[in-house]
């Protein structure tokens, strides 16, 4: 009887201990306003449901796919309650592997989008164009490549006793409602044989959705790509010339005075000339191929290049330092910080002088548990380095020392991690009868009668510092750290 009572009391004690530790609850809504979060019960909004289990185990917060049947948009990882509350259709597949979300190639006019069938229908209705949804195209790049723009040509018609012309598609031409209409595929309105009122000009224009600068005729129609050498060439004003057959193909032609064959992927696009931004004005017209490259810290980068910044304290991974990826697009340099506390590092590759960088996870977590050099330095698995003269059998340390929130003693594990590299140097000195002092140190060589060996101290601090924000260091701004011992800094 006495034993049973002890067991009951012990059981109650354990239950209370477990609840005190803080079991994870699934809150339909947290006090902060987030929906369906696994957190402590105290964070749950009492006005909503909560359960002492993972959200995946509840019906209301189970993650699935939220389908917008009007827009044809599928949203992944959506809780059932959040989807239904917003009038979406919820399906039990967090990664949206459901028939409604299967992607295909949606061809709308001369544009393409790799979207769901319903999304394609919606886009077609918005743009008032016929639906063309192809399920045989399996990826986005193939889809974009499969676009075919309707062939344009000279649409000649009579208006106010004059032979007028518009450079449009055949379909647009015959639906234009003009009189005496005739369509001449691939011909420009300035072709002599058409005898229209439209004449060559020295003007150019930029066209929405195109990168190149184009000539325009006196009727305002877009003609061929701007080429100063062909401004008076009747053949160049007769028929459509492809981009590949235009001036200087395969080059960006940035800041070219004579060629408007700009290319976004090669680093240029058509823009109206602006003094101070564009170096050279076009020989004819107001538009140039603007150079989309960037200059950063005196160095020139191409449009589309990404590189790792050399930020303060990165080389030594000092406290507070962080990795950054820089991005050059459209003449702007954008700064993308990698995850803080050096939990991500920036990696960079150079392919024929074109830089590409990315932030990726710093895989330092299992370095300390590696006891063999070959496993430690396996770059496919981890970012560690081997130190021959380690401390406490600690020879495998992070290559990029992680950061700790050492100022928050309640949450930080910095003292636990850093203490792995604690080492004591014991110096024992004996005075012989002759008065000569002989000292021995353990570990060997750590000190002598004058005290700690400076080289040993530096070596130990290097191992210590490699573990993370440990040891004697300055921060990334160059300010020395401090240690509060006995009330003194």
């Amino acid at each position: 009887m006495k034993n049973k009572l002890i067991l009951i009391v012990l059981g109650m004690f354990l239950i209370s201990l477990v609840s005190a530790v803080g079991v994870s609850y699934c809150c339909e809504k947290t006090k902060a306003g987030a929906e369906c979060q696994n957190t402590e019960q105290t964070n749950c909004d009492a006005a909503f449901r909560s359960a002492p289990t993972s959200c995946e185990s509840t019906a209301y917060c189970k993650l699935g796919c939220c389908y917008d049947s009007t827009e044809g948009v599928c949203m992944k990882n959506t809780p059932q309650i959040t989807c239904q509350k917003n009038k979406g259709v919820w399906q039990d597949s967090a990664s949206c592997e459901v028939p409604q979300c299967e992607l295909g190639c949606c061809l709308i006019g001369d544009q393409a989008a790799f979207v769901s069938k319903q999304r394609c229908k919606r886009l077609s209705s918005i743009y008032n164009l016929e639906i063309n949804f192809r399920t045989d195209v399996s990826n986005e790049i193939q889809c974009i490549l499969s676009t075919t723009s309707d062939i344009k040509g000279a649409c000649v018609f009579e208006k106010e006793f004059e032979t007028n012309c518009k450079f449009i598609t055949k379909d647009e031409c015959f639906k234009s409602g003009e009189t005496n209409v005739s369509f001449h595929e691939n011909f420009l309105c300035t072709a002599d044989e058409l005898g229209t009122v439209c004449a060559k000009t020295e003007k150019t224009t930029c066209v929405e959705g195109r990168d190149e600068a184009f000539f325009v005729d006196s009727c305002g129609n877009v003609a061929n790509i701007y080429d100063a050498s062909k401004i008076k060439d009747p053949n160049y004003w007769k028929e459509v010339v492809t981009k590949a057959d235009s001036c200087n193909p395969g080059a960006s032609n940035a800041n070219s005075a004579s060629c408007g064959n700009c290319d976004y992927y090669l680093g240029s696009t058509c823009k109206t000339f602006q003094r101070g931004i564009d170096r050279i004005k076009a020989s004819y017209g107001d538009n140039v191929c603007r150079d989309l490259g960037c200059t950063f810290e005196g160095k020139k980068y191409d449009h589309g290049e990404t590189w790792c910044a050399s930020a303060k304290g990165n080389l030594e991974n000092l406290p507070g330092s962080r990795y950054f990826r820089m991005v050059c697009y459209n003449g702007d340099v954008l700064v993308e910080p990698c995850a803080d506390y050096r939990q991500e590092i920036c990696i960079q590759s150079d392919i024929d002088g074109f830089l590409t960088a990315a932030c990726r996870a710093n895989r330092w977590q299992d370095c300390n548990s590696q006891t063999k050099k070959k496993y430690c330095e396996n770059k496919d698995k981890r970012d560690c380095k081997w130190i021959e003269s380690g401390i406490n059998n600690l020879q495998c340390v992070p290559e990029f020392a992680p950061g700790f929130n050492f100022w928050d003693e309640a949450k930080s594990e910095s003292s636990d991690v850093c203490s792995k590299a604690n080492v004591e140097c014991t110096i024992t000195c004996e005075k012989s009868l002759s008065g000569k002092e002989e000292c021995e140190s353990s570990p060997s060589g750590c000190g002598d009668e004058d005290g700690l060996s400076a080289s040993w101290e530096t070596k130990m601090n290097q191992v210590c510092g490699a573990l993370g924000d440990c040891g004697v260091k300055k921060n990334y701004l160059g300010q020395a750290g401090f240690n509060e011992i006995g009330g003194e800094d």
Partner: protein
Amino acid sequence: MKKSGQVTIFIILGVIIVAIAVLIFLFYPQIKSTLGFGEQSPSGYMQNCIEDSLTESIQKVSVQGGSLEPQHYFLYKDQKLEYLCYTEEYFLTCVMQQPMLKSHIEAEIKTNIQKDVGTCLESLKENYRKLGYNVQADEKDFNVELLPKFVVLNLGNSFSLTKGEETQNYETMKISVNSDMYELISIANSILNWEASYGSAETTTYMNYYHNLKVEKIKQSEGTTVYILTNRDSEDKFQFASRSIAWPAGYGEI
């Protein structure tokens, strides 16, 4: 001599009068609306009356992650950015918080301009009454729709304006303002799906596809990522926050 001088003055006066007549003939509609004595159509009046309020509402929600009063937000440069995908935990992908972003934004804009629409409708009726019209209006709800390049306000109210024998009927009115919100939201949805699947989205992919788009991704220390989408031509902006696959400091909490 004196007589020929008088003739010249008359000729000059004649030319000036003819020129004024030609100008009035050519530009009458514009002059009429500029001077403000013309009678505007109800939809023209409503467009003028509500346009600023609509634009302001679009701008307000677009810099706050699509909400007028963000409930669960990240404070970035004194701006409350709604979390559109969020997890409180470390190492896990985020949970979608606003799966129907477009309809949510449409509802938010509607809420914000509701009062102004009512005021404009009342002043519209009042103005026509002052002009001697008998106004009959059918009170109906309105809706806001985000479309490519535009945000459209569809007013369901039908109007009947009667003056003497003549009656003009206006069934529905559409008020639109230029905005790239639709395009920016579509991109935001794509980014959010990437965040929910992999914890992060690659910004250059979007800038390669959309030549006039700027995508900024700013990771914060506690794991939140701020995304700022900007159309370089119109300078329209949409910014929001997400927290997915967040990394703790060191090994994480002990």
